[in-house]
C-alpha cells in the first residue's frame, strides 16, 4: 500500500533536493570522493533529519513504514546529483535484509540506521562477484554458543565504513545470515572502483564472532527480497541520473554555439536529445511500475517481473544517456573535471553490479515462466 499522496511525495522530494543543493554540489562531491569515508557525514545526518533514511523502516522499529514508492523519491534525487552516500549499502541492502529476516533482534539496528547513527552493509558476493543466494564458501560455525565466520567477501557496497555487516554464510542448516558488529578478526579493504561516487570494499573473516539473523537456512528467501529491492532502488537512481544527463545535454545544446548556431538546432544533436528523452520516459515508467508493484498496489504488474524489467530498461537508459551526454558536450565532456564521466561510471557500475545484462535476462525470463 502506498502510504503517501503525490503532493506529500513532492514535499519529500523538495526537502531532499534542498539538502543536496546545499551539501551535494560539484565541490562537495569532489570533497566526498576524496575523503576517508567517501561521503559527507553532514549530508548523511541531514538526510536522517528529514527522514530520508527511515522511510522503509517499519513503524515497530521506529521508521515511517512506507515503501519503495517513497524511497524512490530519495533515490531519484541521489541519482540526479550522484552525491556520494552509503544509502545503497545501508538503507537499501542491509536494512532490507534486516526487515526481511523478520527477526525482532534486528529492530535496534534498524532504529540506529533510521536515525543515521549506524552505517551498514550486506556481504554476499564472493570470488566472481556474482549475486548468489546459496553455495557460499564463507562458513559459519558454532563455537561454544558463539557463531564464528570464516571466509572472504568481495564487492561489499559501503563495506569499509559499515558499523554493521550482514553476512551470508553456509551453515550445516543451509545458507544463513549473520550480523557482525565487532571489528575483531575482520579485515576490510577499500577497493579501487569504476564508480567514483560509490565505495566498495572486500571483507575477510577469520573466526569472527557473529550473531545469527533470523533462522538458519533463511538466507535464500531474504536475499531474494534484497535483490529485488536493490533492482528497484537502482532503477530509481538510474532514472534520476538519466534525467540529469538529458537536462545537461539540453542545456548545453541551447547554450553552445558552433557554425553560428546553437548546436541544439542541428538535427544530429536534436535527435540525440530526443532519443535520450525517449529512454528517460521509458525508464521512468519502468521504475515507477517497479516501485508501486513492490508495494503491492493493485492493478500493477507482477512485482518480480517489474523489478527485472526496470533493471534492464533503466540500466540501458542510464548507460545511453551518460554516453550521449558526453558526446553532446564534445571535448569538455570527457575531461576529468566535468561531471559527465561520473554518470558514465555510475551507469556502467550499476548495470554490472548484480551480474549484468546476461544475468538479468535469465532472471526476467524465469519470472515470465520461460
Amino acid at each position, binding site marked *: 500500500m502506498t502510504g503517501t499522496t503525490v503532493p506529500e511525495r513532492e514535499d519529500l522530494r523538495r526537502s531532499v533536493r534542498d539538502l543536496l543543493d546545499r551539501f551535494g554540489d560539484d565541490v562537495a562531491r569532489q570533497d566526498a570522493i576524496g575523503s576517508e569515508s567517501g561521503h559527507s557525514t553532514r549530508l548523511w545526518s541531514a538526510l536522517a533529519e528529514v527522514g530520508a533514511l527511515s522511510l522503509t523502516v517499519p513503524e515497530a522499529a521506529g521508521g515511517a513504514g512506507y515503501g519503495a514508492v517513497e524511497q524512490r523519491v530519495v533515490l531519484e534525487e541521489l541519482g540526479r546529483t550522484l552525491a556520494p552516500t552509503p544509502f545503497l549499502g545501508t538503507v537499501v541492502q542491509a536494512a532490507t535484509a534486516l526487515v526481511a529476516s523478520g527477526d525482532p533482534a534486528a529492530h535496534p539496528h534498524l532504529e540506529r540506521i533510521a536515525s543515521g547513527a549506524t552505517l551498514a552493509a550486506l556481504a554476499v558476493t564472493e570470488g566472481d562477484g556474482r549475486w548468489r543466494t546459496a553455495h557460499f564458501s564463507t562458513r559459519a560455525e558454532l563455537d561454544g554458543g558463539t557463531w564464528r565466520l570464516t571466509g572472504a567477501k568481495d564487492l561489499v557496497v559501503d563495506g569499509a565504513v559499515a558499523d554493521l555487516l550482514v553476512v551470508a554464510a553456509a551453515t550445516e542448516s543451509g545458507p544463513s545470515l549473520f550480523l557482525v558488529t565487532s571489528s575483531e578478526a575482520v579485515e576490510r579493504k577499500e577497493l579501487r572502483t569504476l564508480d567514483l561516487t560509490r565505495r566498495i570494499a572486500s571483507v575477510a573473516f577469520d573466526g569472527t564472532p557473529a550473531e545469527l539473523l533470523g533462522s538458519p537456512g533463511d538466507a535464500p528467501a531474504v536475499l531474494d527480497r534484497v535483490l529485488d529491492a536493490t533492482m528497484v532502488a537502482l532503477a530509481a537512481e538510474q532514472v534520476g541520473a538519466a534525467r540529469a544527463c*538529458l537536462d545537461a545535454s*539540453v542545456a548545453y*545544446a*541551447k547554450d553552445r554555439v558552433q557554425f553560428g*548556431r*546553437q548546436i*541544439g*538546432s542541428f*538535427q544530429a*544533436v*536534436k*535527435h540525440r*536529445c*530526443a*532519443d535520450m*528523452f*525517449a529512454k528517460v*520516459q*521509458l*525508464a521512468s*515508467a*519502468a521504475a*515507477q*511500475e517497479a516501485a508501486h508493484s513492490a508495494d503491492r498496489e*493493485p*492493478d500493477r*504488474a507482477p512485482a518480480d*517481473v*517489474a523489478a*527485472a*524489467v*526496470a533493471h*534492464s*530498461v533503466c540500466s540501458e537508459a542510464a548507460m545511453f544517456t551518460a554516453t550521449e551526454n558526453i558526446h553532446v558536450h564534445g571535448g569538455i565532456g570527457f575531461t576529468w573535471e566535468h561531471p559527465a564521466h561520473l554518470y558514465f561510471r555510475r551507469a556502467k557500475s550499476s548495470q554490472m553490479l548484480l551480474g549484468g*545484462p*546476461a544475468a*538479468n*535476462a*535469465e532472471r*526476467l*525470463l524465469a519470472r*515470465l*515462466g*520461460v
Partner: protein
Amino acid sequence: MSHRLAHTEPTDLEAFAQSARDFLDASADRLEDETEVEWGAGEDRISYFGDETPEDATRLVDAARAWQKTRYAAGFGWITGPEKFGGRGLSAIHDLIYDSIEAEYDVPDTGVLSLIGLGMIGPTIVAHGSDKAKAEYLPGMYAGDLIACQLFSEPNAGSDLANVSTRAVRDGNGWRVNGQKVWTSVAQHAQVGLALCRTNPDVPKHRGITALLIDMNASGVEVRPLRQMSGGAEFNEVFLTDVWVYDSYRLGEVDGGWSVALTTLMNERASVGSEGAGPAARAISTPFLAALMGENGCLDDSHARRRLAELQADQLATSYLNRQALDHLISGGQPGPEASVSKLLYSQNITRAAHFAAEVVGPRIVADTGAWGAFSWNELLLSTPALRILGGTEDIMKNILGERVLGLPKEPGGDAATPYRELRTSRSGS
C-alpha cells in the same frame, strides 16, 4: 483491467462503469486470457496491415458498423459527443473508462470507423463545422452509417503537410476542387472525406489552406487502391477532378484550414499511444515467441533467450508507460509527450520482434515450405518499414520531441514566411 478512479467523482464514474459492464455483459462475451499457445492450431497469419479479400473486407466493415450501431443505441457509441447531435455529453474520462472496459470483451474491431472517422474527423467537425455539416454528418457517423477518411497527405506534402497543392477555387456558393491525395486509409469504404485544399497561393503555406468536407460519392472523386510492400492495399490514392462542394461543408475559416488540420492531428497523436502492440500483439507476446523458439529448437540458446528478454523488457516497459499515461488521463491529468515516445518505441519493438522471429525461424523464412508459423512472419516483417513512416516519420517525431518538449531551437532558414507560390518544389514532382 479495472482502474483506480480517485480524484474524479468516484460515485458517478463507478455507476457509469457499472452500466458499461451491464451493457457489455448483455451484448458480448468476455475475452479469455490467452496464456497457453497451441502451436500449429488455427491460422498462422501474422500481419500488421489488413490484406483481406474484398468480400472479407466488406464483411469486416459490416460487422464494425453493426457493433457501432449497437453501442450507439446503448449510449456508448459517442460518449463525449454533444447531446444535440446524438452524443452522450460526458467527459473524456468516461470515454477512456468505457474503452478500457470494452477491451475485456470479445467485440468486433471497429477500427475502420473509429480510428480516423470517429476518433479524428468527428471531433474536428464538432470543433469547426457549420451547424448544417454537424447535423448532416455527426449522427450518421456515430450511428455507424457513415465512414469518414482524411484527405491530407499528397505526393509533395508528406512530412511537410502544409505544402498541399490540391486547389479549391470559389465557384458560386461553393468550391471546385482539383488535386491528388495519397496514403488515404479507408477511402474505399468512406462516404465523406476531410480535405485540405490550397485556396490562396499568395500567402505563406500555412495561411492559404481551407478545409472542406468532400462527399466521397460525388462526381470527380476517384479512389485507387495503393498496394504496400507487404502485399495488401491498406491505403489509397484519391484523385479529385472538378469536385464541387457547397461552402457550408467548409470547416473553419477560409484560408484557416491549418488550425482545422491541427485539431485533427492532435486527436491522432492522442490515440496512438493507446494502441498497445496492435494487431501483432499476440505474435510478439512472450508465450508466442517462447513457443516459436521451442518449435525451432532454440529455447535453451542463450543468444535467443537474451534477445527475447531484452525485447520483452522493452515491450513490458512500453505497456507500463501506456497504462500509466491512461491512468494519468483518467485521474484528470493533461496528455503528456508519452504518445510520441510511445509511437517511437512501438515501431522499434515490433521491428525488433519481426527480425528476431525471422532469425529464429531460420531459412524457412525465405520460402513457404508449408511449416506453420514460419513463412507467415514475412507479412509483419514487410510492414516494419512503414511503422517508422506512417503518422509522422521518426525524424518528424524526434523534431517534435526536441523542439516542443525539450525546447531546442528550430533549424534556421525555414520557409514559413515565404508565399506558397514562391516555394521550391522537388524536381521530379513526387
